[in-house]
């Protein structure tokens, strides 16, 4: 295992709608023996709503500089945070004028391009590694899982760490834990619709419904995902989607960190599995 300590960027939903993701991320890294140091006074990455790249780069220069001071690479459980942090990292690394300009705003934005930002899935599979993960797993997941990747893990090219059309890292992780991956290739990289939730909920709901429907017809016991916005749409808002579109879905949705945590033998409560909106009890009965 090539990693023992990382700077932790929880992302804004970590204290609210995605606290289960935050809890399970911390618990899993603790079990894996990787120390997470929460970044001191981190700020929002800009999410999907700050579209001006100059603003995104400056906002994240501050975050990157905080971790660089500690000499640590950043890890985050959120796909959007990952994308914004790492694309800012690459832009700042490649462009000295940009670094100078950003540092001119305030010294605390002085970033020297010495670290990088990573998504938890990338760290699990490529830094910790499958052998190490397997050696620490004490439970088998007798669960049929639809692995849902959404955006930003496999695209765009510059920041991607998996295939754009048929990503596999989550599939491998689920199989490693003894779970069964249901056929989901046509759906695994579709967008959840989250960015349109507040302005065109009709489109957002239709997008999410497609994913939930596909998981259901593939015979999945649950969907696994790796982004708090996808989590809010597919889990948090599932009942709203059912009501608005007059359908019954009843599809449990868990974070990949929660699934990995179960395989590592971590207590379900410590993984926040009582906080998912769609009940997860049935899944827990399938962990042996």
């Amino acid at each position: 295992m090539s990693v023992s300590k990382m700077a932790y960027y929880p992302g804004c939903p970590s204290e609210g709608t995605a606290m289960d993701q935050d809890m399970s991320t911390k618990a899993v890294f603790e079990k894996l023996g990787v120390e997470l140091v929460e970044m001191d006074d981190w700020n929002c990455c800009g999410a999907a709503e700050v579209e001006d790249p100059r603003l995104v780069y400056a906002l994240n220069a501050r975050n990157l500089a905080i971790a660089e001071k500690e000499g640590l690479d950043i890890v985050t459980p959120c796909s959007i945070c990952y994308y914004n942090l790492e694309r800012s990292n690459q832009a700042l690394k490649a462009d000295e004028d940009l670094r100078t300009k950003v540092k001119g705003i305030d010294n605390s934005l002085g970033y020297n391009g010495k670290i990088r930002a990573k998504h938890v899935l990338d760290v699990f599979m490529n830094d910790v590694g499958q052998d190490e993960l397997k050696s620490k797993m004490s439970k088998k997941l007798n669960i049929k899982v639809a692995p849902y990747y959404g955006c930003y893990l496999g695209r765009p090219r510059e920041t991607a760490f998996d295939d754009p059309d048929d990503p596999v890292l989550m599939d491998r992780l689920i199989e490693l834990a003894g779970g069964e991956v249901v056929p989901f290739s046509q759906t695994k990289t579709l967008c959840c619709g989250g960015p349109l939730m507040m302005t065109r909920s009709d489109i957002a709901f239709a997008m999410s419904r497609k994913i939930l429907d596909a998981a259901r017809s593939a015979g999945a016991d649950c969907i696994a995902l790796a982004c708090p916005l996808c989590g809010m749409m597919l889990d948090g808002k599932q009942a709203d989607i059912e009501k608005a579109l007059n359908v019954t879905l009843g599809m449990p949705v868990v974070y990949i960190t929660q699934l990995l945590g179960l395989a590592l033998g971590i207590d379900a409560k410590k993984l926040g599995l009582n906080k998912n909106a769609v009940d997860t009890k049935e899944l827990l009965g399938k962990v042996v």
Partner: protein
Amino acid sequence: MIKTWELDPSFKYEIMKEPGGEHITSCYQCSTCTIGCPITELVPDYNPRKIIQMSLLGMRNEVLTSPDLWICLICQTCTARCPQDVRISDLLGAIRRIAEKEAEAGKLKIDSSRPLFDKAFQHQLEKHGRLYDMGLAMEYYPKKEGSFISGMKAMMKDYKDFGMRMFKKGKMGPKAMLPVKVKDRTVIKKIFEEMGEK
């Protein structure tokens, strides 16, 4: 019918000056962006290729007032597949920013509430340094609905059930009513002043 005398041939250069819009002239109209677009699948008239072609032709007003600009998910599917590296997700963002500037200057009207939402988000971020859901909703809904009362009604309609659900799961306690603030907020403010839209 296109009225050639109404075209603005400099529009593409205006777009290219905006960060994200640099690669628009690389487009050779192959439609890969549109064929793979998840929005086009749901809204068949939505056509990013057409938006690019209209921009290249100089149909400035038609592009900037098109409601289609505001239903892009920025999911990056088109960007990942484009053989000409046009970076369509970023390009549409650049066009959206031009439209917002024009709307703020009173030169056109945008038929979407998304600019209001994005602005409210940025405003909250500038104030607190972090996302503050409650503050965002309290700012966005009244603006969208035109008054505080109707805004609160719309917010309750959209979020009453969701809020209750989150509350029951312990994800939306009294703590969520208050913002979590970055300590060094003067820096965040400076970032917006220096790098934000003027």
